[in-house]
């Protein structure tokens, strides 16, 4: 095993991880581990934009953004975190512009802004242009810029290093063990501060907008170390995944004026959100779509609907939505300037995650007690900004705001915390033994079958509409799959770039957190935001205005605990669009 030392080690090189690395890199020695080359991170797939109430294209204020975020999250978000998010959005957006992000521009040369679902001025009244964008490659532009700035800052990158274990002793995180995929060699990284910025987990669903890499690694890693996971039942389904792959068609398509039609040629959002139509928040639109599909009004009775852009005209589409045009041609063979796009809801984003405080410190009891030296930001973390449902364009925003904040906090922390502790033998040996055990897997079970069953069942049972029966079935199924996983076998015995092993570890991670999702969802007997229970169709603030915390006990079982929601300014009210 090779050993490395850095003041700060960041795991994951999306927008959150890179922003943290870049900021911490201003005064500390930073190493970034990423299981893919940094520019391959899934932040780059974000298309539509990044919210900030700059007011460049109409009257806007952070207070309106605050209200939209609270209401969009169905009042489950912690309002102290949400206020911080929307306030810092403004300077962070300017900072990103200064760093070089190639934003699209208004006629006066300011950062251009576009409408998006759930963005309103005057506390929910009229649509407002709030999403700052670079055509429909906003995430790509931000990701590349931050990677390049990190290079400038002298951040050390360990590309294609896959973390297999965190080293946490006596409530302090001291480092981690990672697999260098290229060689198959394990490396121990010792650090004062470790930040997890490993992104989302929607790969656990069959129909998903997520990349192959989005397997929730960071979540499984902290859960294995006894840290709880928060609000895992809240999974966002994006309304416009390209049928049948589920590839993302940005909400910008509706922001720019796209319509949704069912098989009867009806703009069915009239029935579900009369005033906001297609620009209602994502959970509302996805439920509407699923209802249309379930009631047989999908196109030709199938599992998709039409997203129609044709009335926008070729010029607008090619100028504002060029990537969408390209994607639809390449993956559906359809020219969206002439024909509607077949779309379906697709698993997209995890509102829940690793509980942190406002300074991105990971909370080992989920409430107050931090794990010293362990931080998390971006999609894998849960501060909680998004509550029960995330507003479009708040994801890259959260990654930027809290990644940046975490970077600065870590830089201060390592300065005060003293030298890196010497390496300990036991945790690295345990990680090595676990890894060798997996490499030697030679049972009769097929990883592919386990993964396919997991993904199909998550889409069926933990999809847009949930019931106790489906969720109970899913919990039992996952436990069965976990048992079968113990007898899995692989054929590749080589150590060199062995992706069969990395896929196997990812599957193990997915089984771990999927169980948490199903168990948390089963317990929450209400409908709120993205969590929609047919058997409990109403939101229940008396019982359920609280965050779920799921602990993995030493015996492998799950224990649920809850904590109150932070409410500062906006009292819960009925959510109507």
């Amino acid at each position: 095993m090779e050993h490395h030392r850095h003041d700060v080690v960041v795991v994951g090189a999306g927008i959150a991880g890179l922003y943290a690395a870049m900021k911490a890199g201003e005064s500390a020695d930073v190493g970034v581990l990423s299981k893919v080359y940094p520019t391959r991170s899934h932040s780059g797939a974000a298309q539509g934009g990044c919210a900030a109430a700059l007011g460049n294209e109409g009257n806007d204020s952070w207070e309106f953004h605050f209200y939209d975020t609270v209401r969009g999250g169905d009042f489950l978000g912690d309002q102290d975190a949400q206020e911080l998010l929307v306030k810092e959005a403004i300077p962070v957006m300017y900072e990103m512009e200064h760093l070089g992000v190639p934003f699209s521009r208004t006629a006066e040369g300011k950062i251009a802004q576009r409408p998006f679902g759930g963005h309103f001025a005057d506390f929910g009244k009229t649509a407002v242009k709030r999403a700052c964008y670079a055509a429909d490659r906003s995430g790509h532009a931000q990701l590349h810029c931050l990677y390049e700035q990190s290079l400038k800052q002298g951040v050390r990158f360990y590309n294609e290093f896959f973390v297999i274990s965190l080293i946490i002793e006596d409530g302090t995180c001291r480092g981690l063990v990672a697999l260098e995929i290229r060689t198959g060699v394990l490396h121990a990284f010792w650090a004062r501060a470790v930040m997890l910025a490993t992104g989302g987990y929607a790969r656990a669903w069959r129909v998903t907008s997520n990349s192959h890499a989005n397997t929730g690694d960071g979540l499984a890693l902290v859960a294995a170390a006894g840290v709880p996971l928060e609000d895992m039942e809240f999974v966002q389904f994006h309304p416009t995944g390209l049928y049948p792959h589920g590839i993302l068609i940005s909400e910008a398509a509706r922001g720019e004026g796209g319509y949704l039609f069912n098989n009867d040629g009806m703009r069915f959002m009239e029935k579900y959100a009369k005033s906001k139509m297609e620009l209602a928040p994502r959970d509302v639109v996805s439920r509407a779509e699923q209802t249309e599909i379930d009631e047989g009004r999908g196109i030709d009775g199938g599992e998709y609907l039409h997203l129609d852009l044709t009335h926008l005209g070729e010029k607008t589409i090619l100028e504002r939505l060029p990537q969408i045009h390209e994607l639809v041609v390449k993956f559906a063979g359809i020219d969206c300037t002439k024909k509607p796009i077949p779309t379906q809801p697709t698993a997209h984003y995890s509102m829940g995650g690793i509980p942190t405080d406002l300074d991105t410190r990971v909370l080992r009891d989920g409430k107050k007690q931090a794990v010293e030296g362990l931080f998390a930001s971006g999609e894998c973390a849960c501060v909680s900004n998004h509550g029960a449902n995330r507003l479009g364009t708040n994801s890259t925003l959260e990654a930027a705001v809290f990644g940046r904040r975490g970077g600065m906090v870590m830089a201060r922390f390592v300065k005060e915390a003293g030298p890196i502790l010497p390496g300990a033998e036991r945790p690295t040996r345990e990680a090595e033994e676990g890894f060798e055990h997996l490499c030697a897997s030679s049972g009769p079970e097929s990883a592919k079958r386990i993964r396919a069953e997991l993904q199909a069942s998550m889409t069926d049972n933990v999809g847009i509409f949930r019931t106790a029966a489906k969720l109970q079935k899913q919990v039992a199924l996952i436990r069965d799959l976990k048992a079968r996983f113990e007898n899995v076998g692989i054929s590749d015995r080589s150590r060199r770039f062995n992706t069969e092993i990395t896929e196997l570890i990812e599957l193990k991670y997915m089984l771990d957190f999927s169980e948490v999702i199903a168990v948390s969802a089963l317990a929450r007997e209400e409908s709120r935001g993205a969590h929609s229970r047919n058997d409990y169709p109403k939101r229940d603030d008396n019982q359920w205005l609280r965050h779920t915390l799921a602990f993995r006990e030493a015996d492998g079982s799950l224990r649920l605990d809850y904590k109150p929601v932070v409410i500062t300014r906006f009292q819960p009210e009925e959510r109507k669009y």
Partner: protein
Amino acid sequence: MERQFKIYRFNPEAAPAASFQTYTVDIQHAWTVLDALNAIKWDQDGSLSFRRSCRHGICGSCAMKINGKNGLACEVQVESLKGVITVEPLPGFKVIRDLVTDMDGFFSHLEAVKPWLIAGTPPTDKERVQSPEDRKLIDGLYECILCGACTSACPSYWVNDDFLGPAALLKAARYVMDTRDDGLTDRLDVLDSRNGIWRCHTIFNCVEACPKSLNPTEAIVKLRQKLAALRI
């Protein structure tokens, strides 16, 4: 429908020389080459190694040579290909294993061109102003996904992997052409070096290879024009 895939295999741990292995895959409608590779890996041969991530052409992981042409496996529809489909790693790069190539040099060349905004004046507390027309100057430059297809197709790079290559130079152009950037002179020691922009012979292989329809040759030409304006 069944299709045959002839795939480049190389693993120095097992055998010193590379070989081709043929697989038959039952292709479903709208499958891309990546879907087929996944099917092979998951159903037939777990030892086949390749990179993939976003599966919709924005991350640049799965660039490889498919029927002689560089492209993203996740974007190439199997139905658009004829005959036995030959899949090889990107040419010009060292192969680590199977379809996986060593991209470290590629990324170090990127870093060499100082791919970050070098502004002449400190920023205000608002955004820098840039007109839509000025912003248009970097259209066709900022969209690069760093998949490596262009550099891998460049004859100048084939014979000299110290040549910065089209991708790094496109990135340099993305900053040099940005009206907010004043860093041309800072980048000269790299761009105007023996392995800089002069090693491009306007062969246009990079343009043929780019899966995003970008034009790195034009970008390099623009850098030369900028340099000429500076020197004369």
